[in-house]
């Protein structure tokens, strides 16, 4: 009966999964390259659909699932490739089921590895539960609020809108519901493919050996040919700051949106701080930024940062203190507001005291690597991060590679972004399946989902100039404005800039930075070009639909002055 149900599903998704599970045995079915995405895209299906598919598989592959001492709950779901050939319980065990672990697990299944993932908290990790995902829900609300509140903007469309208001609980529910939905999607996609989900926290006991559980006698020991650490990070709370979860909070609490303070101080003006300032100001709060560096928005290309500041900070109900540390933050109690003591970042002298309704600590994230048992294999963390080489192989205290141990994502600190973790995981699995692979981190885009958005890939202008100086090449800059884009103007969103940093001698793209409407979606043309090594002289002939925002990049590439002409590939005639 179950198989009947799954056959009635007309979507290609179960078929794809079916194919993958067969791949190890029935080679000619081939493996869809996009398998990982099939899994992720399964949002349209509810859990029953995936259950059908898994049952179907477990029925077919029961012969292979003869492993002992595995979690009873998932025993019936095994069928996770062929048994580990080398006498291990698994080919691959991943510690941590965030986006990085999930990406690695799915790719491992595609490669036919018998895979388990250990999750100590909730599937999805920070991104899905306490990071990118719920924050996008809040930002979606703030974007709409902004639009509706901008009378001038509405009037210029000829629209009339009565005063916009919001229901805090409704907004909070939206964020929470989105997180649950994405979490169940991730869980289902892994279950459906046959990744064993082991519950508890994982500890490495020695080479290729670990245990998982609640840390008591009930812990179970598993062996694995290879292990990936993907334990992620937690909000970093500097010394002297007392987080009470009510008036002094981190992003973990803020995303629950339990209250909207009249005045909130945000410590740190990076991505997280900036996004929350967008949310809070849209919901009516006033914001004070506290930034240790001398200018707001460090880390962004200076030119983009300057423009973004003009649009995202100056006109809003935001002020800032730069070049200062919040040396002490005391939560509100006994009718007293939150007290923030500021000291000069350089001289350490007391500078000011702020009294606000709430403080959000957005000073960055600290790796979550405690209790991993790294001491058992002589690995010393650096400021909590697990040291790795460019192939994510863990380096021990003597500077030697630890065989069969990898670390991806926030825990290695190379690039603390969800999609970077996933890319690193895939890179590791590629290596495990015999293909050497080194991830080009410069091709990984980043985005900040303010209104409008900021996105970037590759080097900033100062970084590029420094590199050029060292390596002796020339750097050129091209810029286009959203003001020149028809679609942006039709949306009354002409504010924005795209900036291309490139080598005029060979057309190599060194970096692209975008500030403007849907910048986060626009960056991928540039990041793909960097990843594929596409040069400007070639990509400039690619055609963009008119009128679309993508023409901003089209113009950007076309305005670059490259001294070499297109390579012949582009010129190949294609009959139409």
């Amino acid at each position, binding site marked *: 009966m179950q198989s009947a149900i799954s056959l009635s599903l007309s979507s290609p998704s179960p078929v794809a999964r079916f194919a993958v599970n067969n791949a190890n045995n029935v080679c000619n079915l081939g493996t869809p390259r996009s398998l990982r995405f099939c899994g992720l895209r399964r949002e349209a299906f509810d859990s029953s659909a995936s259950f059908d598919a898994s049952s179907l598989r477990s029925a077919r592959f029961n012969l292979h699932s003869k492993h002992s001492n595995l979690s009873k709950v998932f025993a019936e779901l095994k069928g996770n490739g062929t048994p580990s050939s080398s006498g291990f319980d698994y080919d691959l065990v991943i510690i941590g089921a965030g986006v990085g672990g999930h990406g690695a697990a799915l790719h491992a299944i595609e490669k036919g590895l018998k895979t388990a993932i250990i999750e100590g908290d909730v599937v999805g990790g920070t991104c899905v539960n306490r990071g990118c995902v719920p924050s996008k829900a809040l930002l979606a609300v703030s974007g709409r609020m902004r639009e509706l509140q901008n*009378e001038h903007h509405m*009037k*210029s*469309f*000829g629209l*009339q809108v009565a*005063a916009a208001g919001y229901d805090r609980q409704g907004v909070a529910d939206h964020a929470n519901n989105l997180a649950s939905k994405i979490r169940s999607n991730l869980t289902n996609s892994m279950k459906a493919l046959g990744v064993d989900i082991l519950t508890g926290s994982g500890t490495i006991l020695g080479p290729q050996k670990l245990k998982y559980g609640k840390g008591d006698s009930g812990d179970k020991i598993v062996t694995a040919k290879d292990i990936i650490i993907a334990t992620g990070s937690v909000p970093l709370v500097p010394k002297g700051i007392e987080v009470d979860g009510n008036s002094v909070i981190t992003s973990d609490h803020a995303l629950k949106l339990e209250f909207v303070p*009249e*005045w909130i101080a945000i410590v740190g003006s990076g991505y997280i701080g900036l996004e929350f300032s967008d949310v809070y100001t849209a919901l009516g709060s*006033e*914001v*004070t930024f506290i930034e240790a560096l001398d200018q707001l928005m460090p880390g962004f290309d200076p030119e983009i940062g*300057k423009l973004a*500041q*003009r649009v995202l900070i*100056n006109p809003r*109900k*935001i*002020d*800032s*203190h*730069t*070049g200062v540390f919040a040396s002490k933050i005391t939560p509100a109690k006994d009718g*007293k*507001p939150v*007290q923030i003591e500021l000291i000069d970042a350089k001289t350490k002298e007391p500078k*000011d*005291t702020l*009294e606000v*309704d709430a403080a959000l600590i957005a000073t960055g994230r600290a790796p979550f690597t405690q209790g991993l048992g790294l001491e058992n294999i002589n690995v010393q963390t650096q400021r909590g991060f697990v040291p790795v080489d460019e192939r994510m192989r863990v380096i021990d205290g003597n500077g030697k590679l630890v065989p069969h141990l990898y670390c991806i994502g926030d825990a290695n600190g190379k690039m603390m972004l969800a999609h970077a973790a996933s890319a690193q995981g895939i890179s590791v699995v590629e290596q495990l399946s015999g293909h050497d692979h080194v991830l080009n981190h410069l091709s990984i885009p980043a985005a900040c989902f303010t209104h409008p958005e900021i996105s970037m890939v590759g080097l900033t202008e100062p970084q590029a100039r420094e590199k050029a100086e060292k390596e002796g090449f020339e750097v050129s800059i091209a810029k286009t404005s959203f*003001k*020149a884009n*028809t679609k942006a*103007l*039709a949306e*009354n969103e002409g504010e924005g800039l795209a900036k291309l940093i490139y080598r005029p001698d060979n057309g190599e793209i060194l970096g692209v930075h975008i500030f403007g409407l849907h910048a986060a979606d626009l960056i991928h043309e540039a990041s793909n070009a960097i990843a594929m090594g596409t040069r400007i002289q070639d990509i400039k002939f690619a055609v963009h639909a008119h009128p679309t925002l993508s023409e901003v990049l089209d113009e950007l590439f076309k305005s670059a002055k490259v001294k070499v002409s297109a390579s012949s590939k582009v010129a190949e005639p294609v009959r139409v």
Partner: protein
Amino acid sequence: MSHSHLLHTSFIPTAPPSLRRRLGGSAPTPRPHQIQSKIREIFMPALSSTMTEGKIVSWIKSEGDKLAKGESVVVVESDKADMDVESFYDGYLAAIFVDEGLSAAVGSTIALLAESEDEIALAQSQKTSSSGAVSAPPANNNDAPKVLDEMPSPVATAATPAVQASVGILGSSAHPASEGGKRVVASPYAKKLAKELGVDLRGVVGSGPNGRVVAKDVEAAVAAVKVSSGGATVVASEPAKPSGVELGSVVPFTTMQSAVSRNMLESLAVPTFRVGYTITTDALDALYKKNMKSVEQDIILQLLYPMSLDREMLFAPFFKLRLFNQSYYLQNSFQIKSKGVTMTALLAKATALALVKHPAVNSSCRDGKSFTYNSHINVAVAVAIDGGLITPVLQDADKIDIYSLSRKWKELVDKARAKQLQPNEYTTGTFTLSNLGMFGVDRFDAILPPGTGAIMAVGASQPTVVGTKDGRIGMKTQMQVNVTADHRVIYGADLAAFLQTLAKIIEDPKDLTL
């Protein structure tokens, strides 16, 4: 509608473009820099005669960039328009004192220009030595009011005594962190608002949590000042938006509205008087009908009430697109018929011809000691644009033919709406017209714009029963005009004679179309 007769432009007919880079002069800002021979200061230029401070929209050049004479360095937003400011010298932009988004008083140093690259470092050391006094960003909340103190805004100066007086009565904020009133605890928006409105936060009583100063306290402080500095004018300058105003809310002035407010207060120092006259317009109306195209009324309505016309609003984005693409469509759809004569142009022409014969009425009093007889007759016409008003100027209205004048008027109005009027297109008026006739207003009284001698308020021309000379009762179309003038330079007899001439011209308008 009451705001329409208020004008905020003071006209300096001879105001040369060189004002844009006036060195020092009347600006009261302290100049803390020792000027080295080869390091030049770049000052906040006066883009209009009413401009007291300007906001830096963006720096086109960055510190260290090479500049050629005539190259644009910075974009400045004045009370009326955004303007590129050019360098008058070759050199290097050495140090920027006022960052983007911040304001500085006219005449204050906003940057340093070094002649050679070697001097950049020297200039930058000047910058650090004379730290943020001029450009202090609002990083330190206590600095904000200090910066404002330097700005000669009449609102600010009026505000200080009034608000501080209230401090004594109400006591300072009870904020525990205010250290007995020494520290200001104000929310970010309150600080921003205080800076914009020129309110000294130290004197504002906070009503927020723990006595914190919040936005509405700043607004209340401003309202208190308004009342104490003479209710009549202030009430009159309230923006009267026809729709979309949230009742019960307090909306801060825009830059333009602040300029209006400032000028209205300034006008109180001028001894004005008023003379009215009734003019028969049958002949003028006939002439108008002969030449008119229906576009005129439509344009005036749109200008006065752009927000109320949905059609206008709906099409606004398309207009922008078209403007951008410079499509031929633009030219076609906005082209004024070559023969199209507008009532505004006819009135301006008639006034200019009358002024030719009465130069005293075209004069002004600049210093309280002398007459300034203007060599040109430039008729400014008040136009309401969303949320404010501006006075585009028909220059040499006496010399230009009525058809060219009509076209010129249309062009000025379009530019005014796009906020692209150049200073010489709105600051050079010598005589002002304000017309509310199209709304059926039969008479009203205008406030004299500072720097000019007279303004004429024009009412509606309407059919009136009159006694004619031969003792019969007849029907004539008549309108009332009412001139407000500065009695230091224009006397009652001057105005009477001028109005008589004007009436003659309008009643026998054949000269207008010559």
